[in-house]
């Protein structure tokens, strides 16, 4: 299992891997926002957390379709399916490696982009914390979409379409936790706890559903 984790990590960091592309995409998406809404610093700092969240959501969807498709194309998926180790553990570890290679760099890059959006220290910290808690959920949800679309030749867009609606709760509670942290009256903990609950929930449901989908998609 550890071997699988490090292999996937190596694959995404090596040439052509998703890590750098994901962070670049994140930066580009967020950098485009001021061109759209205008360079008003107050406005930017108000919408900043939401923009970072949307950017992170889109960026973490980017490489997801390859999660199982790449394994299927070279035949590795067959061997992964055949092992004694439960398939849902395999899926879980693959998700964890995918998150560490693509989600974690987004979390690390987010403070920099927070500065670009003229957010204050508290808002940047809160955004980083909620991204850290929330992006794994997106990966786990995405794994289900990736498993369903594994046999499709043009699964990429389909995965995004399948996954985005499911990821909306993550976005809602992630963003509302950040705003609760910045604006005084609303308490920060309740939305943040719900966000963590969503992540834990999908950490269980995601691998189970993805494993079931992979079993049935075998041909």
């Amino acid at each position, binding site marked *: *299992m*550890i*071997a*699988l984790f490090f*292999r996937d990590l*190596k*694959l995404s960091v*090596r*040439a*052509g*891997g998703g890590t750098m592309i994901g962070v670049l995409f994140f930066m580009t998406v967020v950098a485009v926002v001021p061109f759209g809404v205008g360079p008003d610093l107050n406005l930017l700092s108000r919408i900043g957390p939401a923009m970072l969240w949307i950017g992170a959501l889109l960026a973490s969807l980017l490489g997801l379709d390859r999660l199982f498709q790449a394994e299927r*194309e*070279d*035949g*590795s998926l*067959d*061997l992964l*399916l*055949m*092992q*004694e180790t439960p398939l849902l553990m395999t899926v879980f570890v693959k998700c964890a490696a995918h998150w560490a290679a693509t989600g974690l760099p987004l979390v690390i890059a987010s403070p920099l982009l927070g500065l670009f959006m003229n957010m204050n220290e508290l808002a940047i910290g809160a955004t980083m914390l909620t991204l850290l808690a929330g992006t794994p959920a997106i990966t786990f949800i995405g794994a289900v979409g990736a498993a369903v679309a594994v046999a499709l030749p043009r699964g990429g867009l389909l995965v995004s379409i399948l996954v985005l609606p499911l990821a909306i709760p993550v976005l809602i509670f992630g963003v509302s936790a950040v705003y609760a942290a910045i604006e005084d009256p609303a308490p920060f903990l309740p939305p943040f706890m719900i966000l963590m609950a969503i992540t834990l929930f999908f950490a269980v449901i995601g691998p189970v559903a993805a494993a079931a989908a992979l079993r049935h998609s*075998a*041909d």
Partner: protein
Amino acid sequence: MRLLAEGLSARRGEDLIFNDISFALGAGEALVVTGPNGSGKSTLLRVLAGLLRAESGRLRIEGGPAEIAHPYELSHYLGHRNAMKQELTVRENLSFWQRFMGDSPGGSGIDVAAAAEAVGLAGITHLPFGYLSAGQQRRMAMAKLLAAYRPIWLLDEPTAALDAGADKLFAALVTAHLERGGILIAATHQPLGLGSTQSLQMKGFTH
């Protein structure tokens, strides 16, 4: 240990691919599956590997380790694709599968370098897998069979991309496996150069 198949049949979509296949293989025995294209050789192997559900019939192990739920957990499957990553080096690929698969009870895999040597490609394990030619890639995929121990080998067209020299090498590998009490099921068009084997002629199924 014996591998028993009783009345296997499989379907793809609406079509019945094969019907009522039965065989019994003991330790050290090999089964060569032959037949024209589309006769269901690959499908049979995928059923045996647990990758496709059998429509009917049963597959079981007699006298194997108690904790094994399905025969495929004791099996190596070498399909048309090599299950190796182009971006990783040969050694990274092989040692990943060695560590991920582990050994079945009753045997142990050999060292990665030794496995590469056994397929005649020692000394290039530090290079990316993508640099290798098609035949070399196929041979490295066979080294995977040695790196992790499995008593049952399911091989689908194992010698398709190999030249004559590598064919002989492969026959030697298989013979050694059978002598250790392994079981082999191979689907092929070409003779594998083995001694006495059972054979199963797939005829294809017509309505």
